[in-house]
C-alpha cells in the first residue's frame, strides 16, 4: 500500500477494473478465482492485480470513472481547479487537461453515460466565473458560453438524470437546479432546499436523493416541487449511492461509522397519492472477529459494482479496500418429500441491468470471494441466464445428508404396503428394506406369539426382584454339566442351564431344541448361512458337525480359504492341548478373521473359565443368537445382568433388535424413540408399534404421535388408500374400543331411529326370520321404504340364501359387513331409492329415475368432477 486512499470507483463498463485515488491514483483488476495468486498482494483484503498508476495528479479532490467501454478513462479534479483526463496509457496530452480561468477548488465531476465524452464539472464559487462547465473531451477545452452555467455561484454536487439530457446540480448551499441541455438557455427549474449534497438519481429514473448534514431528502423527478420524503438519522452523511442492481435501494455512509446504512425506498398507492416509506437496515461488512476490535473504525467510501448483484467495494480507514456483497436472502422451506429443509435463495449471478445490456460486453463473472454460493451458478454458462433477479432457486441443503434422508424411500415402502404383512409373507421379501430392518422384522416376527410381543426379559422373569415369583422361577433351573464330545479331551466342564423359561426364550430367539436342532441347522445351511450354522453347532458342542458344514461350505464357495482353514482347525481341536496356544493367537486373529460368526467360534473354544464376554460382545453376531447363547450358558444373575445391559445398550444406540429383550414395554418404547431420534424413520417406528404393541402401551403418547405423524405423511402424499388400510388395521387392534356408528336411519314419519332397533336385535338370528321383521318402523309401524326396483322393504337382504353364511362369519369378527352394493341409497333430489346394486344396474341402461312418473335424472346429479387435488398431482 502506498499512502492513504480517499476514494474508489468501479468502471461502469469494465466490470473487473476499479480505480483508487488519494495520494496516488491506481488502477486495479479484480482477479477471478481460478487464477493462481501471486505471493503478495498490494491490497490485503481483495484479490486483485495492480495494473498501473497515474502520477501526475496527486491529492485529487474528486475522481470520476467514465463510461468509455474501449479503455478505462477517469477524470480527476484537483484542489486548484484543474481537471485532468487520463487513461493510464498515454503520456501527457495537453488537450486532456482543462484549467478554469479563475483558480478555485474543483468540487464535483459527472460523466454522461450516453455520450461518453461529455463531462460535467463543478467548481467552487468565484465572483466572475461560472461554477458548472460542460466539457466534451474530444473537442478540446470548453470555450463556448453555452457550456458554462451558474455565474458567481458554487456547485456542491452534480448528476445527470436517467436519460442523460438534464444535468441536476446542487448549488450555493440552497438550490437544486435542473439544466436541460437540449435548450440553449439552460436553467429551467430550481428548487429551494438546503439539501444540495450527494445528488443521485435512482436506477428507476424517478427518484432523486440529496442530503445535508444528517438529513436525506427524496425527490420525485416527475414532481420535484415538494420533497417526497425526508429521512433523518443521528449521524451526518458522507456519501449517498443507489444500488444499481435494485430499483430503489439507497446506501449511505455516515461519518465515523463502521456501518453501511441501507434505505429500501418503497411506495404504496394509498388512495389518492402514493405514500412513500422506507425500510432501514444497517450492515457492518467486517468479519465477526474484527467487529469488536478497533481494527476497522470507519467506512470512508463505497462504490457499487455496476452489474454484479448487490456487490460493492468499500474503503475502510482510508487504506483497506474490501469487496463486499450484501447478505443473500435465504429461506428454508420444508417439502413433504424431504425431511431436511430446502434452501431457497436468489440465484447469485449478475442481473443484466439496462445499461449493461447496451454495452453488450459479455459478463465476465469474477467469482466474488464473499460467496461460495455462486458455485452452483458457475457450473452452467452464466451468460445464458436471462432470469430476473427474483427467481428462486431450490437447493438441497446438503447432498450428503440428503442421502440419509429416507423420505422418498419411506414413500416407496408405503406404496408397497410396508408393515402390512407378516415377515414370512412373500410381499415382505420384495420390499426395498435394508438387511438390518429385514432382520429386525424377522426377529420380531419370531418373538411375537399369542398376540403379544413378550420380551425375553419378562419371559426369563428378570427384574421381578426378589419376590417369591423370581425365586420360584430360579428354583426350577436345572444346571447340567456338558461333556465335550468324544475325541476332544477337555477337562473344562461346561455348565449349561435349562429351565422352562429358558427353553421358551431359546425358541423365541429362533433356536430349537435338541431334536429339532439338526433340522434348524439344515435350514440355515440351505439358506447359505454357513458360518452361523457352524457357530450354532459349536455352541451346542457339535464340533464335528461344524467341521462338516464348513468343509462342505468351502466346496461351494468361491473363496473357500477361510472356511477351509476353520474346518481344519476345528477338526483338530483339542480343548486341553490347544486352548493355551490358541489363546495366544486369538487377540491378533480376531482382528483378521472377517466373519463374526467364525470369530465367535474361536472365542468360544478358547474362552477362559466361564468368561463368555468375547462371544457375548461380538456385535457382528445377531443379538438373538447371542442372547440364546447367554440363555444356554450364563447363570441366572449373569444372565439378568447381561439382558439388562443389552437393553441399556439398545436404548442408547436405538437398536431395534433390543425389542427382542424388552418386548412390549416402556423400555421398548424407549428403544423405538431412540431409533427414531437417530434415523428419523417414523414409518418403521409407527409400523412396529401398530404391529406389535397392542396392549396397554399402545395408548402411550409417543406411539400415538408416531402413528399420527405417519398417517399424516401418508395423507400429505395423497396415499389415501394406504392410510385407510392402516386405519383399519389400527381399528382392528383396538377391537375393544369400538367406533361409534356414524350412519343412522330414522323413520320418515315419526323421526325415531330405525337402525337402533335393528342393532338392538340379538345377533345370532337366522336370516329367514329377520327378513320379515322390519317391514315397518319399530316405533310407529309405518312401512319402511321399499327398493323401487325389487319392491322389497329396506333392511331386507338380497339373495338371502347366498349371503347367510358369509354374514355370520363377518359378524363373528365384530363387524357388520354388508357389501356396499347391498345397501340402500337414495337420490337426494327425488327421494326415490333402493338397493344400490339394483339402482346401479338400472342407471346403466336408463337415465331417468326407476319410479314411473318421476322424471328425475338422478344419476346425472352427481357431477363426475375429479378431485381438485388429483388434478394437481
Amino acid at each position, binding site marked *: 500500500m502506498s499512502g492513504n486512499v480517499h476514494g474508489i470507483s468501479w468502471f461502469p463498463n469494465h466490470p473487473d477494473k476499479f480505480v483508487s485515488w488519494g495520494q496516488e491514483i491506481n488502477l486495479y483488476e479484480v482477479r477471478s478465482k481460478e487464477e493462481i*495468486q501471486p505471493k503478495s498482494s498490494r491490497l490485503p*483484503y481483495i*484479490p486483485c492485480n495492480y495494473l498501473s498508476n497515474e502520477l501526475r495528479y496527486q491529492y485529487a479532490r474528486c475522481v470520476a470513472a467514465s463510461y468509455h467501454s474501449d479503455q478505462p478513462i477517469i477524470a480527476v479534479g484537483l484542489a486548484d481547479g484543474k481537471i485532468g483526463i487520463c487513461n493510464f496509457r498515454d503520456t501527457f496530452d495537453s488537450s486532456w487537461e482543462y484549467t478554469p480561468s479563475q483558480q478555485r477548488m474543483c468540487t464535483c465531476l459527472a460523466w454522461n453515460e450516453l455520450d461518453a465524452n461529455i463531462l460535467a464539472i463543478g467548481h467552487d464559487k468565484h465572483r466572475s466565473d461560472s461554477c458548472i462547465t460542460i466539457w466534451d473531451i474530444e473537442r478540446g477545452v470548453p470555450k463556448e458560453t453555452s457550456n458554462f452555467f451558474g455565474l458567481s455561484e458554487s456547485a456542491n454536487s452534480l448528476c445527470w438524470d436517467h436519460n442523460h439530457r438534464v444535468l441536476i446540480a446542487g448549488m450555493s448551499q440552497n438550490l437544486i437546479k435542473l439544466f436541460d441541455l437540449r435548450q440553449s438557455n439552460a436553467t429551467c427549474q430550481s428548487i429551494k432546499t438546503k439539501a444540495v449534497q450527494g445528488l443521485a438519481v435512482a436506477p428507476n429514473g424517478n427518484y432523486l436523493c440529496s442530503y445535508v448534514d444528517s438529513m436525506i431528502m427524496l425527490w420525485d423527478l416527475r414532481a420535484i416541487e415538494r420533497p417526497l420524503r425526508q429521512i433523518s438519522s443521528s449521524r451526518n452523511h458522507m456519501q449517498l449511492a443507489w444500488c444499481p442492481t435494485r430499483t430503489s435501494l439507497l446506501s449511505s455512509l455516515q461519518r465515523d461509522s463502521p*456501518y453501511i446504512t441501507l434505505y429500501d425506498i418503497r411506495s*404504496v398507492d*394509498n388512495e389518492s397519492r402514493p405514500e412513500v*416509506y*422506507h*425500510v*432501514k437496515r*444497517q450492515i457492518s*461488512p467486517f*468479519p*465477526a472477529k474484527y467487529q469488536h476490535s478497533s481494527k476497522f473504525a470507519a467506512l470512508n467510501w463505497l462504490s457499487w459494482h455496476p452489474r454484479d448483484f448487490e456487490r460493492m467495494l468499500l474503503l475502510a480507514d482510508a487504506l483497506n479496500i*474490501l*469487496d463486499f456483497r*450484501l*447478505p*443473500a436472502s*435465504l*429461506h*428454508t*422451506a*420444508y417439502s413433504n418429500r424431504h*425431511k*431436511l*429443509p*430446502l434452501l431457497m435463495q436468489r440465484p447469485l449471478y449478475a442481473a443484466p441491468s439496462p445499461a449493461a445490456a447496451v454495452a453488450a460486453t459479455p459478463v465476465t463473472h469474477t467469482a466474488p*470471494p*464473499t*460467496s*461460495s*454460493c455462486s*458455485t*452452483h451458478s458457475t457450473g452452467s454458462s452464466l451468460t445464458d441466464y436471462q432470469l*430476473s433477479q*427474483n*427467481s*428462486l*432457486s*431450490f437447493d*438441497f*441443503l*446438503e*447432498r450428503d*445428508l440428503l442421502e440419509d434422508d429416507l423420505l422418498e424411500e419411506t414413500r416407496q415402502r408405503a406404496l408397497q404396503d410396508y408393515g402390512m404383512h407378516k415377515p414370512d409373507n412373500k410381499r415382505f421379501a420384495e420390499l426395498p428394506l435394508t438387511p438390518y430392518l429385514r432382520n429386525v422384522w424377522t426377529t420380531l416376527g419370531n418373538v411375537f406369539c399369542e398376540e403379544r410381543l413378550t420380551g425375553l426379559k419378562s419371559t426369563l422373569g428378570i427384574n421381578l426382584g426378589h419376590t417369591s415369583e423370581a425365586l420360584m422361577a430360579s428354583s426350577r433351573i436345572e444346571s447340567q454339566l456338558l461333556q465335550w464330545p468324544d475325541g476332544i479331551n477337555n477337562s473344562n466342564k461346561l455348565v449349561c442351564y435349562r429351565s422352562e423359561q429358558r427353553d421358551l426364550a431359546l425358541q423365541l430367539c429362533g433356536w430349537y431344541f435338541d431334536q429339532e436342532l439338526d433340522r434348524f441347522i439344515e435350514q440355515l445351511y440351505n439358506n447359505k448361512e454357513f458360518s452361523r450354522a457352524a457357530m450354532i453347532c459349536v455352541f451346542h458342542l457339535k464340533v464335528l458337525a461344524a467341521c462338516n458344514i464348513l468343509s462342505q461350505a468351502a466346496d461351494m464357495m468361491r473363496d473357500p480359504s477361510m472356511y477351509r482353514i476353520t474346518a481344519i482347525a476345528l477338526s483338530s481341536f483339542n480343548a486341553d492341548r490347544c486352548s493355551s496356544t490358541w489363546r495366544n493367537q486369538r487377540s491378533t486373529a480376531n482382528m483378521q478373521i472377517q466373519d463374526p460368526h467364525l470369530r465367535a467360534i474361536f472365542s468360544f473354544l478358547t474362552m477362559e473359565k466361564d468368561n463368555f464376554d468375547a462371544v457375548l460382545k461380538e456385535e457382528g453376531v445377531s443379538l438373538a443368537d447371542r442372547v440364546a447363547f447367554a440363555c444356554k450358558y450364563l447363570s441366572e444373575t449373569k444372565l439378568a445382568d447381561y439382558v439388562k445391559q443389552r437393553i441399556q445398550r439398545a436404548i442408547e444406540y436405538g437398536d431395534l433388535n433390543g425389542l427382542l429383550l424388552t418386548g412390549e414395554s416402556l423400555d421398548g418404547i424407549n428403544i423405538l*424413540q431412540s431409533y*427414531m431420534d437417530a434415523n*428419523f424413520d417414523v414409518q418403521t417406528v409407527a409400523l412396529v408399534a401398530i404391529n406389535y404393541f397392542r396392549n396397554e402401551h399402545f*395408548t*402411550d403418547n409417543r406411539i*400415538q*404421535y408416531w*402413528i*399420527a405423524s405417519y398417517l399424516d405423511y401418508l395423507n400429505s*402424499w*395423497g396415499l389415501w388408500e394406504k392410510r385407510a388400510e392402516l386405519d383399519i388395521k389400527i381399528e382392528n387392534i383396538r377391537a375393544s374400543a369400538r367406533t*361409534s356408528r356414524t350412519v343412522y336411519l330414522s323413520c320418515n314419519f315419526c323421526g325415531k331411529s330405525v337402525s337402533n332397533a335393528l342393532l338392538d336385535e340379538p345377533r345370532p338370528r337366522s336370516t329367514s326370520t329377520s327378513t320379515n321383521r322390519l317391514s315397518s318402523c319399530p316405533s310407529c309401524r309405518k312401512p319402511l321404504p321399499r327398493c323401487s326396483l325389487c319392491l322389497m322393504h329396506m333392511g331386507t337382504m338380497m339373495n338371502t340364501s347366498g349371503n347367510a353364511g358369509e354374514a355370520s362369519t363377518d359378524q363373528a369378527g365384530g363387524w357388520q359387513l354388508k357389501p356396499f352394493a347391498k345397501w340402500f341409497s337414495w337420490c337426494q333430489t327425488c327421494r326415490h331409492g333402493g338397493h344400490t346394486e339394483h339402482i346401479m344396474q338400472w342407471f346403466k341402461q336408463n337415465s331417468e329415475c326407476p319410479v314411473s312418473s318421476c322424471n328425475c335424472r338422478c344419476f346425472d346429479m352427481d357431477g363426475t368432477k375429479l378431485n381438485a387435488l388429483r*388434478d*394437481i398431482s
Partner: protein
Amino acid sequence: MVSLLQEIDTEHEDMVHHAALDFYGLLLATCSSDGSVRIFHSRKNNKALAELKGHQGPVWQVTWAHPKFGNILASCSYDRKVIIWKSTTPRDWTKLYEYSNHDSSVNSVDFAPPEYGLVLACASSDGSISVLTCNTEYGVWDAKKIPNAHTIGVNAISWCPAQMPDPAFDQRVTSRTALVKRLVSGGCDNLVKIWREDNDRWSEEHRLEAHSDWVRDVAWAPSIGLPRLQIASASQDRHVIIWSSNAELTQWTSCILHTFDDAVWSISWSTTGNVLAVTGGDNNVSLWKENSEGQWIRINYESGTAIQSKQTHNLHPQQQPQQPAHLQPSSDSEHSSNLSNSHLSNSQLSN
C-alpha cells in the same frame, strides 16, 4: 455442499421475502416486496398458477392452513393487513377474509395446529398479537387481540403443537378440554413470551429473558413424544437459544445453541426429525440436532457460503476428519472470504 434442485422464475418485481410449500408439497406460495403473492407448482418449472393481489405493501410471510379446511393461505403485509385466501382450483383464488385491525406492519402469521380448528395468529409491529378464529360452519371470523404483547413490536409467532393426539385417532382420550392453546412470540423488547388461552382470554404465562437484542424468530418444536417441549428463539444478539420445559410447562430452562457470527434471522424445526435449521445474516444455513446427551451438534458443514464458521463450530469428534485441511486462514484471500458477515442492527420500519 448445496446442490441445485430447481429454479423457479417468480417474476416478482422485487425481493422475495418468504416461500412456503403446502401440506402436500405440491404448491409453492411466494411473497414479495411488490405486494403480490404467487402460487406455483413446486415440481414444475413453469409460470405462476396465480397471482394474488390485494396487499399494498411488501408481503412478509405466507402460511398454508391444514388441507382439511380447504386450500387456504394467509399472507401478512406491511400495509397492516392480513389476507386469508381460499381457492377451489390452484388457479382460482378469492379473498376469504381480510383483517385490518392492526396499526402497523404485520410481520408474521401462523396457522394453529388443525386440532384447534382454523385459527390464525398474527404478530404486528404495533406490539399486539391477534388470534383469528374461523367458525367454519358459518364462515365467520372472530378476532381476539393481545394488546401490548411486546413493546415496539412483535417479530415472530409460533403455535404450541397440540399435545394430545387428535381425538379422532383415539376415542379413549375424551378430554378435549385438555387442549390448551399456547403461543410463543418474540419481539423487539428482547423477550420471548409464552401465551396461554384460559376461558377465551389470552394471558401471559411465561416471560423468557435471555436475549440482549431483538428476537427475530421463534419456533415451537413439534412434540416428539418426549415429556417436554422445546422452543427455539433467534435473535440479533447472534444467539440461538433452545428453551426446554418440564412436563407441566411450568419451568423453562435456556441453553444457548450457538453464538453465530452474525444476527440470526430465522429458525425452523423439521417436521419430525428434530433438526433445527438456522439461517442468519452470515449467508449461512446450519442444521443442528440434539444428541442423546442433550448437546446440540451441527450436522452440516458446507451449506452456505461462509467457510470460516466451520472452524468455530463444536465439531462432533467423528466428523473431525471430514474437515478439509486447507481451511486455516493463511493467505490474504482467506480474509476476504470472511467478509460476508454483517450486523443488522436496525431494520425496523421507520414510517
